[in-house]
């Protein structure tokens, strides 16, 4: 038999002025199961709470209903009070008779009547409340960072700084990502390598950080605080522990005609290669698509010249399994493919390049040693046209609908650098809008226009046609002058839209995190939780969440690190006990609940059940991971058999409230 205590608060005159609290206490005292019904001036005060505590002890209460202000205000206060008196805190219910009654109604009779009904509903619910205990789930004190660009490096450094072990998984042979390919950074024009490579070295030397280069995540199991991740270490045919990075093999390899992806294919590398001089780890990698030894067993030069004996043609993919408490995704971006934009002649004219290719062309470590030359004939370009928004802000099915955000600024940077280094070169920038929100960004763009005399023209380039004399005819409109222009250019630079890395989509499936239609990871809340994914324990760093420049990426990387550190600092996580649970006897294993769960908290297992006549049957049933479930209840409605229910807001509890209100 339930023994319920009802406590009606006056809240000074806030409630008592429009609700006859005495009458409410009197009426609720007659409800079934209620053994004590009291009113008091301020229930949330010390003495008010003591009233509740004493009543719990004295009357051996099995449930408490407090008629007071909104549960959003004092539910926790009364739960704590109950707990300190030895009553499970989840046996307390609040009837909101202030915000939703006394404050909005003027007529005492109807407000009192409503307060009584709200009290009845709370009593009806508390009859069905069950004691709930918060589960504790241990936290593995190690983080995984997926992606070793500037975002991943920064996150890893911050987490290591806080004293936690952290692993970086990078799919390329070296960490560094896109920033390593960039020449200079806006708006300060300092060299990217000069600020990035010290961080790369720091990461490699930090004993808390383990770098898995040339590796991929192949499987993720578990949940917040306790992920088990399988990392595939791809065969690089070089023993990482032996290779000293001397680079002799990369000079002697006879296979010279391999497009160098680090330089965007603008020059060649060998079949055995180190992507760039400051690579971390500085270890050679053999490209099995080109290596003669691996292809037909004839060559072996690298093995002969390697004094460390690091070359291992028999190496295979290895799998490493590791446990992590937190995972940070930092998979970054890529420029989109421009094969659908025939009008820009990108696919067949070598002098039409993307901005990232221009970075390499201008970089001192690039294919031309830093001298800007046309890729076709290695001559100095005198007229360069930049085209903005190539594939960004497109609604034509060929490009991306979003603004790629970084192009306006890097184009201003490119234009400025070219004008500074080669004052005889005319630079035209065709823009739709110039977007420069950011510290010192607009000043930077204005400098390009005012000091460096870059020709900014509002309008779009419609067609790029290479001519027989090697020049390029750029046909465009100047909307402000109302003219159709033809520019006789030497080079055209396309600001290609950026898109999330292709590895992100399968990764999101493994992590059960959500993505938007553009394959950017979705943050848990667009304003208030920008670096967390909706899946607990998974954080987002850098451009995998949306287009970002370097300062923003680093800021977000550190924010993600802070969130991960916050999680790793805990020995265990206290889970909200108001989570879903599945009644195995009712469950059909139909997977409807799994489909609507935003957190991937539901898994299935085959379980053996006793059937009539001493037989058994194996059935697939759902089970909810209480550490992952956030208690939204979407699954409870998707479940046709009613097997899925929600603690604290169960079907029967809500139904009882409905009945009490409609009675």
């Amino acid at each position: 038999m339930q023994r319920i205590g009802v406590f009606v608060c006056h809240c000074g005159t806030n409630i008592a002025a429009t609700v006859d609290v005495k009458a409410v206490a009197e009426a609720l005292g007659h409800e079934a199961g209620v053994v004590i019904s009291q009113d008091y001036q301020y229930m949330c005060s010390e003495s008010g709470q003591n009233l509740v505590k004493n009543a719990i002890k004295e009357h051996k209460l099995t449930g408490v209903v407090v008629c007071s202000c909104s549960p959003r205000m004092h539910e926790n206060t009364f739960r704590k009070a109950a707990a300190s008196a030895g009553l499970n805190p989840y046996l307390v219910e609040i009837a909101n008779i202030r915000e939703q009654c006394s404050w909005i109604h003027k007529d005492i009779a109807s407000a009192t009547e409503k307060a009584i009904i709200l009290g009845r509903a709370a009593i009806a619910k508390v009859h069905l409340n069950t004691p709930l205990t918060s589960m504790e789930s241990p936290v593995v004190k190690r983080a995984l960072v997926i992606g070793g660009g500037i975002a991943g490096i920064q996150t890893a450094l911050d987490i290591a700084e806080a004293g936690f072990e952290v692993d970086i998984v990078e799919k390329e042979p070296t960490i560094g990502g896109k920033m390593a390919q960039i020449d200079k950074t806006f708006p300060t024009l300092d060299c990217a390598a000069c600020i990035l490579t010290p961080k790369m070295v720091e990461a490699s030397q930090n004993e808390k950080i383990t770098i898995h280069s040339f590796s991929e995540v192949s499987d993720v199991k578990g949940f917040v605080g306790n992920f088990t991740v399988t990392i595939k270490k791809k065969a690089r045919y070089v023993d990482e522990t032996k290779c000293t990075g001397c680079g002799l093999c990369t000079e002697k390899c006879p296979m010279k005609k391999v497009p160098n992806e680090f330089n965007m294919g603008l020059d060649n590398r060998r079949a055995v290669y180190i992507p760039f001089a400051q690579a971390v780890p500085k270890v050679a990698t053999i490209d099995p698509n080109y290596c003669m030894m691996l292809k037909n067993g004839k060559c072996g030069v690298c093995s002969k010249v390697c004094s460390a004996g690091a070359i291992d043609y028999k190496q295979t993919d290895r799998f490493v399994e590791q446990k992590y408490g937190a995972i940070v995704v930092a998979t970054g971006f890529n420029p989109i493919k421009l094969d659908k934009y025939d009008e820009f002649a990108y696919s067949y004219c070598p002098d039409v390049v993307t901005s990232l290719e221009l970075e390499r062309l201008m970089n001192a470590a690039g294919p031309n040693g830093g001298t800007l030359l046309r890729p076709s004939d290695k001559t100095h370009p005198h007229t360069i046209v930049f085209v903005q928004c190539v594939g960004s802000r497109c609604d034509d099915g060929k490009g991306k609908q979003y603004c790629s955000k970084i192009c306006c600024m890097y184009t201003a940077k490119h234009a400025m650098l070219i004008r500074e280094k080669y004052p005889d070169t005319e630079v035209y920038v065709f823009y739709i809008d110039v977007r420069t929100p950011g510290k010192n960004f607009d000043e930077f763009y204005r400098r390009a226009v005012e000091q460096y005399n870059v020709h900014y023209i509002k309008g779009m380039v419609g067609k790029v046609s290479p001519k027989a004399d090697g020049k390029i005819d750029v046909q465009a409109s100047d909307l402000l002058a109302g003219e159709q222009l033809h520019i006789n250019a030497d080079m055209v630079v396309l600001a290609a839209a950026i898109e999330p890395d292709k590895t992100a989509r399968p990764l999101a499936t493994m992590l059960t995190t959500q993505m938007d239609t553009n394959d950017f990871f979705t943050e848990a809340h667009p304003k208030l939780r920008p670096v967390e994914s909706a899946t607990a324990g998974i954080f987002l760093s850098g451009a995998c969440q949306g287009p970002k420049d370097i300062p923003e990426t680093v800021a977000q990387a550190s924010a993600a690190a802070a969130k991960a550190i916050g999680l790793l600092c805990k020995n265990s996580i206290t889970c909200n006990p108001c989570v879903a649970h599945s009644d195995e006897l009712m469950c059909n294993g139909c997977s409807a609940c799994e489909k609507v769960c935003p957190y991937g908290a539901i898994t299935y297992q085959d379980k053996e059940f006793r059937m009539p006549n001493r037989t058994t049957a194996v059935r697939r049933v759902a089970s909810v991971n209480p550490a992952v479930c956030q208690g939204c209840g979407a699954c409870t409605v998707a479940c046709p058999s009613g097997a899925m229910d929600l603690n604290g807001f169960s079907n029967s509890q809500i139904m009882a409230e409905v009945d009490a209100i409609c009675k």
Partner: protein
Amino acid sequence: MQVNENFKPVIVAFCCNWCSYAGADLSGTNRLNYPANVKIIRVPCSCRVNPMFILRAFQKGADGVIICGCHPGDCHYTSGNYFTRRRITLLYSMLDFLGIERKRTRLEWVSAAEGAKFASVMEQFVSDVQKLGPNRRLEDLRCRKQ
């Protein structure tokens, strides 16, 4: 149509804890009056509202049922209200198909900042139901107080 002034409709409002319930609290904080017929049931998310609850309310004598949730895209649980929208659209369509008056059911998006909207939505909903009169088509006569 004759409007019975003495008829006090019973209105059940399911409010999502994160948006609409907070919006209801805000309308209280701002002392924005709406009819006392509205009784709110707190749910963690609008997607917790099972069609069974709605039918149960009608069965037990409710004259109108309204569900309030976060605006699409603002769900605390990222996608709950999108499921709500489909489920409730289909359910309301079915109730309409069975000949239940359309204005007895409603779904509204009310954010935690929209106290005024909450009050005006309730005001309007109650007056719509008031005009319809008691729920005769969908009630369980046994449960009705005489």
